[in-house]
């Protein structure tokens, strides 16, 4: 930026002769072996915020362009799953749903879950998928798994339209609690980023991740109160479920939408675990990052 402005303001001869070096906003870049944790710079990430937005926009645009139904998939995926679950678990297995009609109970859980699972899956494959960039140009590598999660948010927003329609259909009113959705979405994204970023780094070195992850994610869904309420689980095992950060988060979504009491304790566990996971993932990512260009 500085140079571009300088070029416009100053006559050309001034630029070539006067060394404007070491003043203005010129960054000093130091390259050393083993930059490690100290190399983690939030400022650098902030500088690349435009790149982050462009990558999100690219991911969304390319995905919708290459598929026949485009944005329809963002809706169809959770919607059809909801229909299926309603038939199997709601009608056949008669799984209780906290006194809320089962379809909307399930959809309220599937909406954040679909976002989470897609974000984690896409983000874990993102580094390998962008190998061409990684070997040719510098930018904070975290932007890539981050953008994959960001693109998931766009799908989440689209799929939320169905939720609004279903709320209206079932005549469920909303209260101020609905504002809690904002921090809840942020928290979901934080946790998805933590898992996705960590997996993306591991995936560069161990390509098994790509095959193992979908299976793992599927199991994870059943370990999260999406098709059943948390009360469905015997009390003495419930603590185990709460250790899954998604438990508190999914419960939070339902509380915010259906005006139930928030389980603040569970939510606090989720928040602490998610943030801790993100810090660990960022640390681990920085460690792995140094080899990306040589290994990928």
């Amino acid at each position, binding site marked *: 930026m500085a140079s571009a402005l300088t070029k416009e303001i100053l006559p050309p001869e001034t630029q070539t002769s006067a060394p404007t070096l070491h003043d203005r906003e*010129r960054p000093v870049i130091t390259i050393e072996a*083993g930059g490690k944790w100290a190399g983690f710079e939030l400022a650098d990430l902030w500088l690349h915020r*435009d790149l982050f937005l*462009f990558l999100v926009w690219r991911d969304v645009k390319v995905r919708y362009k*290459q598929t026949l139904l485009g944005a329809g998939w963002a809706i169809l995926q959770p919607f059809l799953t909801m229909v299926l679950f309603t038939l199997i678990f709601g009608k056949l297995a008669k799984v209780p749903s906290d006194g809320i009609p089962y379809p909307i109970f399930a959809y309220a859980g599937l909406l954040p879950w679909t976002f989470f699972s897609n974000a984690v899956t896409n983000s874990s494959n993102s580094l390998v998928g962008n190998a061409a960039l*990684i070997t040719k*140009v510098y930018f904070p590598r975290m932007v890539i798994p981050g953008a994959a999660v960001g693109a998931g948010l766009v799908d989440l927003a689209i799929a939320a339209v169905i939720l609004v329609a279903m709320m209206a259909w079932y005549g469920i009113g909303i209260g101020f609690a609905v504002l809690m959705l904002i921090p809840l979405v942020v928290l979901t994204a934080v946790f998805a980023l933590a898992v996705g970023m960590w997996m993306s780094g591991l995936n560069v070195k161990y390509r098994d991740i790509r095959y*193992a992850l979908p299976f793992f994610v599927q199991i994870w869904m059943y370990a999260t109160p999406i098709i059943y309420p948390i009360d469905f689980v015997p009390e003495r095992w419930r603590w185990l479920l709460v250790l899954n950060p998604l438990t508190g988060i999914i419960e939070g979504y339902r509380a915010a939408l259906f005006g139930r009491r928030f389980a603040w304790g569970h939510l606090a566990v989720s928040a602490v675990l998610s943030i801790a996971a993100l810090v660990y993932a960022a640390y681990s990512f920085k460690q792995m990052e140094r080899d990306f*260009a040589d290994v990928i």
Partner: protein
Amino acid sequence: MRPIIQIRGLGKQYRLGTRRPYRTLRETMAGAIASPVRHAKSVLKRINARPANPRERETIWALRDLDLDVGEGEVLGVIGRNGAGKSTLLKILSRITEPTTGRAELYGRVGSLLEVGTGFHPELTGRDNIYLSGAILGMRRAEIERKFDEIVAFAELDKFVDTTVKHYSSGMYVRLAFAVAAHLEPEILLVDEVLAVGDAEFQKKCLGKMGDVARQGRTILFISHNMPAIEGLCTSCLLLTGGKMEGKGTPSEVISKYLNSVLRPDAGRRSLKTHPGRRAGSIPIMEWVELQSGVERPIGAVRMDSQFTVHVGFSCPSRPLRPVLGVTVRTAQGATVFNVNNKFIGGYDFDRCKAGTISCTFDNLPLMPGTYTLDLWFNDRASDLDVIFDAISFEVIPADVFGTAQLPWAYLGPIFCRARFGLEPDSRN
């Protein structure tokens, strides 16, 4: 004046034999299960040995102990053979890969251009790709918006800017890609051999644009095998050999040093007594081959258009013969370029002898730069007695053969040729 780039003791070590660099989890786990103690030890060792154990076997220093200062406004050409460490240097400076040793300080924004079309997505339009690629190369959104029209004009594709890039011709693709990159305005620009693509006309335009950038006082590091481009653009030149700095100075100085080192005095001769390329059924009559250019003999690399001689020593103790030598020049890809032999050319009916040296001289070698091989055919005017394919290879080095300060581009075929042109303007116009 303080340098804008300061490099001290910079080195990069690569592990060799890692053709498949990533491991599968199974291998790691299998190792851990089979011998947990040894595995734990090796993991610990690896952690402790970071950044890399120099004594580790099968490693190579792509770059070693480099000290370098680059002043502001300097346009530094970086030359050297393939594998000399040029690209590694640029990759370290552009922070794509980490050095193993040493440090570098850069005072200013760095833009790197290691490939044409980095970040282009075929499914997106030209317009989309300008924004995307610009952002990837380090431009801010506002900056791209400001330069957008200029970029489209430079790429000469205003009509196609909203067409999906996958429908572009390769020429259009390259033009657009370079146009984005050419409008980067960092204080330090790192450019790898990106000009090796695209048509000659556009290459000239890009070189011109790079020249403009240099005149604005920006610092450029420029890798190229195109010596005239280095000589025309750069204010100084760095020669790397085997990862080490071989010299730095004015481009003409360093380029001639480089060319001298490429003209390896040891190459250009090969024994033919046991040659893997000998055709089955041949009688091993040819004993050695030696190449000569001017007074240099043996020589492994010759300049375009220079005098070039192939000498072949032969011996056939059983009976005297009337030697005929056929020489076939082939490209590195194996395509035949031409063939000569003293029977068909005529006037060279040599007397019978049992041993000697037969030679074949080209006064003006008409080959374009590149690597070529020679097939040798030896006969006695009746049948081919000894045939050796790929008997020896040699390199042809660029030279300004037409005196226009321009190199012929390598993809224009293996031969260059002089020609005369005429024009008769039509009086009706």
